[in-house]
């Protein structure tokens, strides 16, 4: 994985010093909260309901064990002994003191980490496929592209005061594990005449007006990528709406002027920008890519696994994925224990995952947008030992992509924007469907919960989505069916009137009953919904 050189170190160290200065000026009353807000937001520091929340960047979700242990250290020293992994592959801490934030950043910098641009109206942390570099189905490792974009977007002088936040995802497989087309810019690395380049989608997003990004350019060679993206961003910075925060994302611009008109403007801008020499030479891309070379895989390993322990066999089938290298597997560690808070991990659990990665996993971990952790390179021969260690730490829930593997935003328990709580709903659903046999019978079922219309819990992209709203002072939950954040991207449709907290759990159970009764051979919940439509579900839920 990428290692900082002297320049990266220097830039991050300067940032720590800068933020320390900004915090001191705020604490001394030299700047107002209104003036401080964009500065702290550009550094991932939010003022939430009860305390400051700090969001730490995990670029494209990739970490080593030393970095993971630092995340545990921060949880212990500055927070309440836990952290929360997010849908943007980051981690956030909910109980931070403003005066501690500069020291936390200094601790992070010591392990080549930061909180740069994890919020604010700027280009956010670049997200990617959590199986990058390991997946059997990928064209190439997307992370060198993502790292190139990380560097380009860091303190970008022109694009730090955009109309709204700006999220970019990069993938390099046909299976989309990063909800790529639901980003402001989605990039899929593709091959054309033996050369790799970027297929660029612009104007996707969730929030209150969900949109699937249209393709804007079929192929941008690496030598032109930064110029092309500068052109994309410049058109947005100049013409994106600034009169209404809810219409300020690039998806609204692309939708209002149309993809063809947006594309034409980008092409015109690209002609100008390309003259400026802002694209690094191929040698810089190659330098970055060398950091992502395969680890020293052993060859000739067996793919045989002893399945005699039935609990292990269930976990093996549910939570491990095919690796490109014979004898190896990709392990998913679920952070969704029944009744737990989706994405939360204690410092002890974070340390344990770091230990396992160091001992058995070439020192690598990934954070997934589904709020789980991945060990990307594990020998099949070590899986049983790893499973035993995870089991002891409460980390061996065998529910990957099942109904209890829920994405949930922090909701009204933490968030100042929320209208309703998300966590208790997630806990009730996971408890109702706690029986693993029943979950496995239901198969792949992606359930996603947002506590307000901003959709941080990705409810539009859930096979089953839940949106918490405030109805006359009472929390109310709307049910959506049929969304997908995968390569078959679709937006969920609302079933009808909303429900109480208990009512929504009943409604979900009725929907799953319809699926079980009507499913065809090999159909997932989503496939059945797409085939039979909303009506039978509506009838069962409201009839």
């Amino acid at each position: 994985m990428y290692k900082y050189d002297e320049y990266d170190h220097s830039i991050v160290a300067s940032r720590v010093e800068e933020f320390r200065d900004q915090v001191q000026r705020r604490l001394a009353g030299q700047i107002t909260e209104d003036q401080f807000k964009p500065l702290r937001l550009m550094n991932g520091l939010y003022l939430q309901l009860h305390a400051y929340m700090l969001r730490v960047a995990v670029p494209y979700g990739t970490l080593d064990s030393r970095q993971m242990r630092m995340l545990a250290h921060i949880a212990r020293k500055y927070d309440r002994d836990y952290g929360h992994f997010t849908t943007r592959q980051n981690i956030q801490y909910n109980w931070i003191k403003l005066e501690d934030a500069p020291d936390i950043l200094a601790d992070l910098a010591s392990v080549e980490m930061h909180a740069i641009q994890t919020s604010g109206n700027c280009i956010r942390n670049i997200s990617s496929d959590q199986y990058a570099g390991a997946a059997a189905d990928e064209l190439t490792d997307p992370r060198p592209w993502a790292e190139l974009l990380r560097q380009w977007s860091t303190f970008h002088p022109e694009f730090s005061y955009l109309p709204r936040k700006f999220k970019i995802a990069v993938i390099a497989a046909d299976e989309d594990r990063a909800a790529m087309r639901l980003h402001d810019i989605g990039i899929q690395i593709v091959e054309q005449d033996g050369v790799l380049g970027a297929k660029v989608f612009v104007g996707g997003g969730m929030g209150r007006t969900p949109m699937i990004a249209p393709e804007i350019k079929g192929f941008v060679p690496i030598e032109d990528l930064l110029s092309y993206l500068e052109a994309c961003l410049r058109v947005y910075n100049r013409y994106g709406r600034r009169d209404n925060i809810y219409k300020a994302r690039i998806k609204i611009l692309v939708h209002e002027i149309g993809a063809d008109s947006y594309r034409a403007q980008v092409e015109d801008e690209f002609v100008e920008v390309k003259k400026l020499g802002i694209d690094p030479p191929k040698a810089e891309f190659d330098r970055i890519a060398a950091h992502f070379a395969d680890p020293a895989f052993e060859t000739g390993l067996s793919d045989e696994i002893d399945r005699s322990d039935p609990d292990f066999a269930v976990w093996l089938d549910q939570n491990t994925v095919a690796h490109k290298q014979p004898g190896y597997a990709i392990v998913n560690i679920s952070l969704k224990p029944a009744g737990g808070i989706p994405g939360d991990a204690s410092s002890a659990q974070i340390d344990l995952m770091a230990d396992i990665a160091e001992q058995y996993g070439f020192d690598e971990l990934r954070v997934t947008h589904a709020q789980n952790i991945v060990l990307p390179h594990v020998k099949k021969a070590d899986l049983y030992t790893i499973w035993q260690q995870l089991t002891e730490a409460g980390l061996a829930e065998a529910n990957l992509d099942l109904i209890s593997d829920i994405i949930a935003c922090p909701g009204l328990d933490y968030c100042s924007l929320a209208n309703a709580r998300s966590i208790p709903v997630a806990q009730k659903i996971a408890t109702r469907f706690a029986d693993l046999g029943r979950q496995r019978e239901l198969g792949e079922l992606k359930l996603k919960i947002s506590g307000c219309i901003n959709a941080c819990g990705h409810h539009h992209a859930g096979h089953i989505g839940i949106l918490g709203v405030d109805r006359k002072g009472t929390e109310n939950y709307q049910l959506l069916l049929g969304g997908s954040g995968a390569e078959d991207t679709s937006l969920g449709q609302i079933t009808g009137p909303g429900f109480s907290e208990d009512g929504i759990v009943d409604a979900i159970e009725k929907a799953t009953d319809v699926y079980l009764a009507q499913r065809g051979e090999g159909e997932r919940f989503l496939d059945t919904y797409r085939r039979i439509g909303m009506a039978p579900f509506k009838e069962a839920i409201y009839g």
Partner: protein
Amino acid sequence: MVELLRYRDDEPHDEPAVTLDSFLGQSNATAVRIESGEDARALLPHLGRLSLVEVSFPKFRDGRGYSSARILREAGYTGELRAQGDVLVDQIPLMRRCGFDSFAPEAEVDEAVLTASLARYDHVYQTAADAYVPVWKKRHG
């Protein structure tokens, strides 16, 4: 009146800046002010006779002026480029990178803070409208 911050060696231009509409309508003005929503490219045919372009920042969150500055510098404009309005001390380093070389902030700027901010970063990741050499160029000679 808050002091004008200037990073140029020539004498300040003393002709008042006219609006974009009046500038485009009269042939002799040498200073123009563009509002954040106005198209800086409208000035490109006239760069030769311009000595001052003032770009308005009605709110510090309104970042359109950063692109206006880049467009003017990319087109070869070498006259004074001034950021005027709700310009905060922490924004000035980025504005410098975009090509602004004078600042007329509405509120007083703490000069010690500004001096420290402008000297803080030894390295940058991108090519912009200033003299910084991006790190990718340093890495590859």
